[in-house]
């Protein structure tokens, strides 16, 4: 501790250089903190987006492959299944030249209120959805994007089927989904008129009565279709969304690798700065050794300089990331559900401690070689060279 004032004064020797080095380390640490929140944040988003008793059944080969529509009745008959509905990708576009701008599905109106009870919609909305053949439930993101409102009529031209359908919006889905749902029967009638047979489904979404029964129900459904023409794969909603966004997870991994490389670059930058700082002081260091400072003491004080600078910078960087994401959470929670997912990214105390430790480690690593070189240098040789 008695060397601390000396260490501190040496850090203040070139304030601009110390400040810039600290800023570089702080920025890297803030970046690391923010990126470290991503895996947990993604999990939280998945958990919030998924209901723990909702399961998805689709073709084992993938969701682009269909299953017989008859599977729906069999799934509904499985003990523990409260309700089930089919989903068919419609691929509807407002303007065919612009392509599909939001996901849209033909679904069964019977059971949708039970399967999506967590939407918290007024029962009258579900009633309207069942009552009107051309009714549509639309995610509020899509509503806001296209400035639609309940009661509006919109027309979508399918990119999958040879039909164009007009829909009457009867309700807004209040979650973060942009999806557009309409009655399967409406599509079936239009396709029948066009001479197209429609007896398949892309997915079946079911609600199970008890979270503890989800596993057995999933196994029972898949077992039921094991020897059928389309073998099924049933999974929880969280797992389904997770798989659907597996590409995003890979992107997060890539981002984290980039963050690690940025951190490594900062080590080199900090090492270069430490090296410059020490090189400028070889004469002074030789004097310290001459008056009796042992090489271990010289090494420790030089290393302490690099470690202290990085530690202070790390604390600043971690605090910045903590404050930034906290402010973002406050902003996102007040800005409506579109930004809701941003509230999932939280700099935990574990991340803070890890980041500060990483920063200190960066300092020690960057200072090690220059400090070792300076402490090992011969006093007599340095005095001859410098003076």
């Amino acid at each position, binding site marked *: 501790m008695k060397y601390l004032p*000396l260490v501190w*004064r040496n850090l203040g020797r070139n304030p601009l250089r110390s400040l810039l080095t600290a800023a570089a380390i702080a920025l890297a640490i803030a970046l690391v903190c923010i990126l470290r929140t991503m895996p947990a944040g993604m999990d939280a988003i998945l958990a919030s987006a998924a209901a723990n008793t909702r399961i998805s059944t689709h073709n084992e080969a993938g969701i682009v492959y269909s299953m017989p529509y008859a599977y729906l009745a069999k799934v509904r008959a499985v003990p523990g299944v409260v309700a089930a509905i089919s989903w068919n990708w419609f691929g509807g576009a407002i303007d065919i030249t612009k392509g599909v701008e939001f996901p849209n599905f033909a679904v069964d109106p019977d059971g949708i209120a039970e399967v999506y009870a967590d939407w918290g919609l007024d029962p009258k909305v579900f009633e309207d959805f069942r009552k009107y053949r051309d009714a549509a439930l639309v995610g509020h993101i899509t509503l806001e994007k296209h400035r639609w409102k309940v009661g509006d009529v919109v027309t979508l031209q399918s990119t999958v089927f040879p039909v164009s359908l007009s829909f009457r919006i009867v309700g807004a889905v209040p979650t973060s989904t942009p999806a557009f749902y309409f009655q399967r029967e409406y599509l079936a009638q239009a396709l029948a008129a066009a001479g197209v047979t429609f007896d398949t489904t892309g997915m079946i979404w079911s609600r199970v009565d008890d979270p503890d029964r989800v596993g057995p129900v999933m196994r029972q459904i898949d077992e039921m279709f094991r020897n059928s023409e389309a073998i099924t794969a049933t999974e929880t909603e969280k797992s389904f969304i997770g798989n659907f966004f597996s590409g995003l997870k890979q992107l997060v991994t890539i981002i984290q690798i980039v963050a690690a490389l940025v951190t490594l670059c900062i080590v080199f930058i900090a090492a270069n700065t430490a090296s410059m700082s020490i090189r400028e002081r070889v004469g002074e260091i030789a*004097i310290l050794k*001459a*008056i009796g400072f042992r090489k271990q003491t010289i090494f420790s004080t030089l290393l302490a300089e690099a470690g202290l600078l990085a530690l202070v910078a790390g604390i600043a960087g971690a605090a910045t990331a903590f404050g930034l994401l906290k402010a973002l959470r406050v902003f996102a929670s007040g800005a409506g559900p579109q930004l809701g997912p941003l509230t999932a990214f939280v700099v935990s105390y574990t991340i803070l401690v890890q980041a500060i430790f990483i920063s200190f480690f960066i300092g020690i690593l960057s200072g090690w070689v220059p400090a070792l070189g300076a402490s090992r240098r011969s006093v007599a040789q340095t*005095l001859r060279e410098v003076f």
Partner: protein
Amino acid sequence: MIDLVNVSRLYHRGADEIHALERVSLHVPRQRFVALMGPSGSGKSTLLNVLAGLDRPNSGEVTVAGQRLNEMSEDELAAFRAHTVGFVFQFFNLIPVLNAVENVELPLLLTHLSRAERRQRAETALRVVGLADRADHRPRELSGGEQQRVAIARSIVTDAELIVADEPTGDLDAKNAEEILSLLQTLKRDFGKTVVIVTHDPRAEKWVDEVIHLDKGVLLETRPGGAARGGAA
């Protein structure tokens, strides 16, 4: 105080061998003020480094204050320097980010003294060199002469028996040079220090007890200085 027997120091510069010291034998009693003189490259700074424990001879024996330096490890030499030797250099070599009293206090960081004791001793040393009122000044706020006085205060603060100075007046004007030489002589006379300086400055001769001449690594002659003849003393 200082005993050197057949000390040789050889340097390698590329393929060349440089004989900085060749079989130098020397005896300096306690409480003497000695000047090592000679042309550039004569080996006087090497001799100073060897007797101060900064450099090791290739052969010969070095005994200072009863301690055989040849047999010491790096750490033991560092401890020897910390306790037994005070250093003064030509370019003052103070730490620019520390003020005068903190610079003087530096060698005391290596002791077990408390912070208050360290500060008290450093202030006392500054008083000895006449700079008590400049304790809070950084080196850049001091003149060359004052900086060298601070360096001398730093060299005596541990109560080292031996003070070595490499060209202590080399960067000073005549007036300051005289003051520094006078101060070094005071350290010998009033504080019982043994002082060895390397110098080109002919003015030093009148202040010292003994002048040792070297050339090409060989000790040519030892003769009395002005102080021994009742000069500046």
